[in-house]
């Protein structure tokens, strides 16, 4: 038998080829095929085949399924037939003939006939299948046709496949099956590819003719769709979709060209009026009804679009791209609206809305049908557009059909509804039984006001929810707003309010002024209906000041406020006033203080001028404008004794940052940085900076989160926030002000004492108060009261004692008025007389340090007081004058206590300070007329000189030297230096060796004066002297000399011993050599007999005095060999002499100074002083401790520790403790005279350096 392979559409499920067996008449092959059909149909699609494609398209693996059709001549395609779906791709001739006889008798002819028919139709794709069965072979063993021969015979003709034992389960059978199937697939695919290529070529040719007259889009549509079907059957959905997309694009292009004026005939059919708007229908894979319409060229634009989209939708869902469906759906709907517009298709008003509405819902239903809930929720962003679009369309239908008004639809609107419903036709069979079809929804929604409301709200809420869920808040608000409009139309303002508030808040926070104005207008309407008076008034205030509105509208809203304000005073009387935020009504722009310091003293008026920018379109009469102020306690002005007028950080004028008008977004009006430089100065030195930096003063405003709720300063923009009024606060008031549109200036004045902070501003119009709850930046002013204050300051840096000096007296009157006759009374003190002149000039300054007057003071001086009569001076002024005072340098010397040592000894230094502290602080007190207490005044005077004295000796002769140092910064003339003995008892004569002329002592310089002391009788033990000189300032022209005195005391001046030393070279040497020993011979001679009253320890032993000598080398040029110190007992008679020899070695060559020789009084320990054997006078006493000496003589001990004695001093430390120790006492200066002081001896370098070196080590 023969078979044709072809496929059918669309009645069969897509994506399969069906092949039916075809048996030739009068043959038994039908049975053969039937027996093989089931395995064949099953196995053919089992393995994929690689499909190679023309035009460089990528190869694909496809599964071939076939539709087997019995061969009929009628089925063969005629010339020019474009059908691809019913095309027989492969013809198969089935035979199981294995008998030569049979073959020759019937099969061959049959085969030839079949081939002839095929050839006649130009079909070259055929195959002959020979089925071999072992049964058949067995049966006809005699006439067996050799398999090869038959095959050969057939092969001569064309192609032949052998299928062996197909129904038996053997390996041979399987092999043969797979070979057969492979062959079949290859042949089928080859034919398919060839025919498809041909088809595509034809299709392209047809498309190229599209600009020729008579070309029809619908015809072409059918051709290309055929291709799409084929791809769909092959499960090549992508390819199939591409065909539809190409069709879509082609059509779109024609419509656009039409819009551009390039019309084509075939488009005419699409321009016909639309009579049906049933919407998309996506439940069937292929809408045959619409397809027929297209095929007939009778489809409307909407029908074509619907059909096309339906196919695309089907394919996209096969491709599992449901979200592309929704996206394309929205595009399609928008596009259709545009295309209808372009093609000027006439349509009943609202019909398109119906179509869009139904289509949206249909798409959503379709998508819901193929996705689960979780997928839907995750992809809300893809569906929400359709929801919103449907909502929008239903809304406009509702408005159009009168379903939104409170009264219900009019008859005109009812007629329209009927017409619209008529265009929907009957519900399609697929959805008749479903409860919630788009069709039913629309029909129901349009049927009654209530049903519409239900459906509309359901849709709206769904859309809002979805938008919220994906964070598209603005879109949600927009739908919310249209819901609000709906509620307002329905007369339901309660429900509208929250939606409006939401939207308004968003617009305000993001600063979109037009939407703000628009929404606020709706809000006003809503609030008025709700009777929310306060809110309505606040909104009205905002609208009245809204520049986006026309003047008429603004005046209307302003009038609303004024009407309310006046009306309620008339009728209700005592009602609490309505407090509204001021920022919508007027803005505080500027504030100015007069005087600019914002600080006045009590008794004067402080003026505050406000500049208010009225935002109202008309003049508004205010009953009063009040600024409440807050008294700052922490800086109470009344007791600010020391506070005078201070400069404020703001120079009198405070500019307020422009609060955002409704046009400016709050985020844009974000406060600018207020920066200030800070400097941290060192407290000690004002010229040194510790650190400097910048601070931002308004971080709390700048850093504020912008997304947080509106700041308290702008509460009114969305809904009024209760304005808190300061109650009981002090208030600055200004009554009966009329605020004109634009800038207004209002002046307040204040006199009350204290520091005040401006807090609130409140404008009252009848029952309405506009309150500015906070004034920012902080503004303060101060009204202060000050106690009178008196200060005395030196005019120069330092006041010098002993000379007339000027001091400045400043009287700050404060709140006190200096009357005529008021006087200051100074208690006179002796150390600081006021140098009175009868009058002195005074200046009067006002509080801002301006010169206001001159006056003369009269000064009267009595013994006890000096009385300065003051000129009349107004309060808060400053009176300044100068006083000349003199501080007397005290003539009796101040012996400082610390000069006396704790053990009662007087330090025997030859330098005495006159005074350690060189300043004098005389205390003065002044009685002031405003106070019962006297004011103590202290001035510090510095003594300009410092004096030192010293005693100089030469053998028995004595000299006194006084050094006078000028410690001040001024140069002085000095004259008439004199030294006198204080008591004039002794027969002492002091002969001056100084110049008699006047001397100049420059600043920080000294003058030395020397006197020769001579005496006739015994020298007194204690000598008390007074040095006096006259000085005057060198800068003064008329020199008036002032005296200076310096007293001092000298004790035990007489020279008792003289010491004479001599250094002798070693025996036989001419000179001393460095490194070799030489001898020091010293002789101590008593010059005067010991006096009886010398010192207590000494008087017991009259016969002799014990002295201790010490050779110490301070210049490290000598080494003492052997003892460096020793005791010497001096007989009491005059001219007693004692010689001591010490061995020395010079270390250097050159003129070396003699080593120091010191002599001390030796006071033996009192307990065993008598038993001390010291007849020869030379006691080895290196262990003698010097530690017992006063500690502050450390400088002297150091010199004793010369090289030879260091160790012994150290070792004696311990054993001397606890035992009564001998003491050493130094002589007073001048008691021991050293003849060889300052002598030098020549030391020659060592002759043998080597020896020296060895010796030294």
């Amino acid at each position: 038998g023969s078979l044709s392979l072809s496929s059918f559409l669309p009645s069969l499920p897509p994506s399969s080829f069906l092949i039916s067996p075809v048996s030739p008449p009068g043959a038994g092959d039908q049975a053969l095929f039937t027996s093989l059909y089931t395995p064949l149909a099953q196995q053919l699609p089992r393995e994929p085949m690689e499909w190679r494609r023309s035009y460089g398209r990528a190869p694909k693996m496809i599964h071939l399924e076939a539709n087997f059709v019995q061969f009929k001549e009628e089925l063969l395609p005629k010339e020019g037939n474009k059908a691809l779906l019913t095309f027989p791709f492969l013809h198969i001739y089935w035979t199981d003939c294995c008998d030569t006889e049979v073959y020759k008798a019937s099969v061959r002819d049959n085969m030839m006939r079949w081939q002839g028919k095929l050839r006649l139709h130009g079909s070259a794709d055929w195959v002959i299948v020979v089925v071999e069965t072992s049964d058949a072979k067995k049966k006809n063993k005699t006439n067996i046709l050799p398999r090869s021969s038959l095959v050969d015979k057939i092969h001569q003709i064309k192609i032949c496949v052998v299928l062996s034992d197909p129904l038996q389960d053997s390996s041979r059978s399987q092999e043969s099956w797979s070979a057969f199937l492979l062959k079949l697939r290859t042949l089928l695919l080859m034919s398919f590819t060839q025919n498809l290529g041909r088809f595509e070529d034809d299709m392209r040719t047809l498309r190229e003719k599209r600009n020729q007259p008579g070309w029809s889009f619908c015809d072409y549509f059918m051709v290309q769709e055929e291709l799409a079907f084929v791809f769909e059957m092959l499960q090549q959905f992508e390819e199939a979709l591409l065909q539809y997309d190409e069709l879509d694009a082609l059509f779109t292009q024609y419509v656009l060209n039409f819009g551009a004026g390039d019309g084509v005939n075939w488009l005419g059919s699409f321009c016909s009026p639309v009579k049906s708007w049933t919407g998309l229908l996506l439940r069937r894979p292929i809408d045959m009804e619409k397809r027929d319409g297209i095929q007939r060229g009778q489809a409307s634009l909407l029908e074509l679009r619907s059909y096309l989209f339906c196919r695309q939708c089907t394919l996209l869902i096969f491709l599992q791209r449901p979200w592309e469906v929704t996206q394309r759906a929205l595009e399609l709907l928008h596009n259709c609206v545009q295309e209808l517009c372009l093609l000027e298709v006439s349509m009943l008003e609202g019909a398109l809305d119906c179509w869009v509405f139904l289509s949206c819902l249909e798409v959503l239903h379709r998508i819901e049908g193929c996705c689960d809930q979780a997928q839907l929720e995750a992809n809300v962003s893809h569906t929400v557009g359709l929801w919103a679009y449907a909502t929008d369309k239903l809304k406009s239908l509702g408005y159009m059909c009168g379903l939104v008004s409170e009264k219900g639809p009019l008859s005109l609107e009812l007629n329209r509804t009927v017409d619209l419903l008529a265009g929907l036709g009957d519900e399609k069979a697929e959805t008749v039984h479903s409860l919630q079809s788009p069709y039913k929804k629309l029909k129901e929604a349009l049927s009654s006001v209530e049903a519409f409301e239900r459906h509309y709200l359901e849709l709206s809420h769904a859309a809002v929810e979805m938008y919220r869920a994906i964070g598209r808040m603005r879109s949600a608000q927009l739908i919310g707003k249209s819901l609000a409009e709906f509620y307002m139309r329905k007369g339901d303002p309660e429900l509208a309010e929250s939606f409006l508030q939401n939207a308004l808040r968003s617009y305000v926070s993001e600063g979109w002024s037009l939407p703000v104005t628009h929404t606020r207008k709706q809000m006003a309407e809503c609030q008025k209906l709700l009777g929310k008076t306060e809110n309505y008034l606040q909104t009205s205030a905002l609208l009245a000041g809204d520049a986006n509105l026309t003047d008429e509208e603004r005046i209307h809203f302003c009038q609303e406020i004024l009407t309310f304000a006046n009306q309620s005073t008339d009728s209700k009387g005592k009602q609490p006033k309505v407090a509204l935020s001021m920022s919508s009504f007027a803005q505080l722009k500027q504030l100015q203080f007069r005087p600019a310091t914002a600080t006045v003293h009590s008794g004067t008026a402080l003026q505050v001028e406000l500049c208010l920018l009225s935002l109202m379109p008309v003049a508004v009469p205010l009953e009063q404008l009040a600024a409440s102020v807050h008294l700052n306690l922490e800086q109470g002005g009344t007791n600010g004794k020391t506070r005078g007028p201070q400069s404020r950080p703001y120079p009198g004028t405070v500019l307020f940052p422009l609060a955002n008008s409704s046009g400016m977004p709050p985020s844009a009006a974000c406060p600018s940085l207020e920066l200030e430089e800070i400097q941290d100065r060192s407290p000690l030195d004002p010229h040194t900076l510790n650190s400097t930096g910048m601070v931002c003063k308004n971080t709390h405003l700048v850093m504020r989160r912008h997304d947080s709720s509106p700041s308290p300063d702008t509460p009114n923009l969305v809904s009024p926030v209760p304005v808190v009024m300061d109650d009981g606060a002090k208030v600055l008031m200004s009554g009966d002000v009329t605020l004109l549109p634009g800038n207004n200036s209002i002046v307040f004045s204040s006199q009350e004492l204290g520091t005040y902070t401006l807090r609130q501003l409140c404008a009252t119009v009848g029952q309405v108060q506009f309150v500015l709850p906070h004034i920012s930046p902080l503004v303060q002013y101060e009204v202060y009261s000050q106690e009178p204050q008196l200060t005395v300051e030196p005019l120069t840096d330092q006041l010098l004692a002993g000379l007339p000096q000027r001091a400045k007296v400043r009287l700050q009157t404060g709140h006190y008025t200096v009357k005529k006759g008021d006087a200051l009374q100074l208690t006179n003190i002796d150390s600081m007389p006021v140098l009175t002149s009868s009058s002195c000039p005074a200046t009067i300054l006002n509080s801002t340090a301006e010169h206001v007057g001159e006056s003369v003071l009269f000064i009267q001086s009595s013994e006890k007081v000096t009385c300065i009569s003051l000129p009349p001076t107004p309060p808060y002024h400053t009176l300044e004058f100068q006083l000349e005072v003199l501080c007397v340098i005290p003539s009796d010397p101040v012996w400082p206590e610390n000069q006396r040592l704790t053990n009662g000894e007087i330090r025997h230094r030859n330098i005495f300070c006159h005074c350690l502290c060189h300043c004098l602080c005389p205390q003065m007190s002044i009685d002031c007329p405003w106070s019962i207490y006297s004011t103590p005044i202290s001035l510090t005077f510095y003594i300009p000189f410092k004096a030192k004295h010293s005693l100089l000796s030469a053998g028995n002769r004595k000299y006194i030297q006084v050094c006078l140092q000028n410690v001040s910064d001024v140069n002085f003339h000095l004259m008439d230096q004199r030294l006198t003995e204080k008591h004039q008892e002794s027969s002492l004569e002091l002969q001056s060796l100084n110049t008699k002329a006047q001397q100049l002592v420059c600043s920080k310089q000294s003058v030395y004066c020397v006197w020769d002391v001579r005496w006739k009788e015994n020298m007194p033990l204690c000598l008390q002297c007074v040095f006096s000189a006259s000085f005057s300032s060198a800068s003064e022209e008329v020199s008036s000399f002032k005296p200076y005195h310096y007293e001092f005391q000298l004790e035990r001046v007489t020279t008792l011993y003289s010491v004479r030393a001599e250094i002798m070279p070693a025996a036989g040497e001419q000179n001393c050599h460095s490194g070799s020993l030489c001898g020091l011979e010293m002789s101590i001679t008593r010059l005067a007999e010991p006096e009886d009253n010398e010192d207590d320890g000494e008087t017991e032993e009259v016969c002799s005095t014990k002295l201790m000598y010490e050779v110490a080398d301070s210049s490290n040029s000598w080494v003492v060999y052997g003892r460096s110190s020793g005791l010497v007992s001096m007989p009491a008679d005059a001219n007693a002499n004692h010689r001591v020899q010490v061995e020395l070695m010079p270390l250097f060559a050159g003129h070396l100074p003699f080593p120091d020789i010191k002599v001390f009084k030796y006071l033996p320990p009192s307990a065993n002083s008598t038993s001390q054997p010291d007849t020869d006078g030379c006691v080895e006493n290196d262990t003698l401790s010097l530690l017992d000496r006063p500690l502050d003589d450390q400088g002297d001990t150091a010199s004793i520790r010369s090289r030879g004695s260091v160790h012994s001093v150290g070792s004696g430390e311990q054993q001397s403790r606890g035992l009564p120790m001998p003491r050493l006492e130094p002589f007073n200066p001048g008691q021991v005279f050293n003849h060889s002081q300052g002598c030098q001896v020549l030391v020659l370098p060592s002759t043998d350096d080597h020896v020296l070196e060895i010796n030294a080590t």
Partner: protein
Amino acid sequence: MEHTQSRDACWHSRHHSKMAVCIAVIAKENYPLYIRSVPVQNELKFHYTVHTSLDVVEEKISAVGKAMADQRELYLGLLYPTEDYKVYGYVTNSKVKFVIVVDSSNTSLRDNEIRSMFRKLHNSFTDVMCNPFYNPGDTIQSKAFDSMVSAMMVQAS
């Protein structure tokens, strides 16, 4: 009522030249720095439209932000198609947004042309920012910017 109005706009728009009907510059904080539209009577609607489109702008910025913020393309493409208008978006690196609204019937505008409009807008905006007298964050009052925008807008018929 709004519906019929837009229908009329649709009829008229066919005769307009192929340009934008609304151009807006929006600050980082989402307030308008500049917004102009034709025809003037539809201004409010455009304001609402542009404001709503910020939803999508934010969505697109944050979607890209996760992946690679620095290599983000400034052009955001079509944000928000409506029946009557197509809204395109563009965001600068400093998060200033440009929005161009085109009439839906204006099908001849290609994506490239929209891009080049945005580029021009961006350049001109940069010039405005470079002006030392311009305080960043203030609304744009520049005449040069204005005239550049005018050149891109539909001439009101």
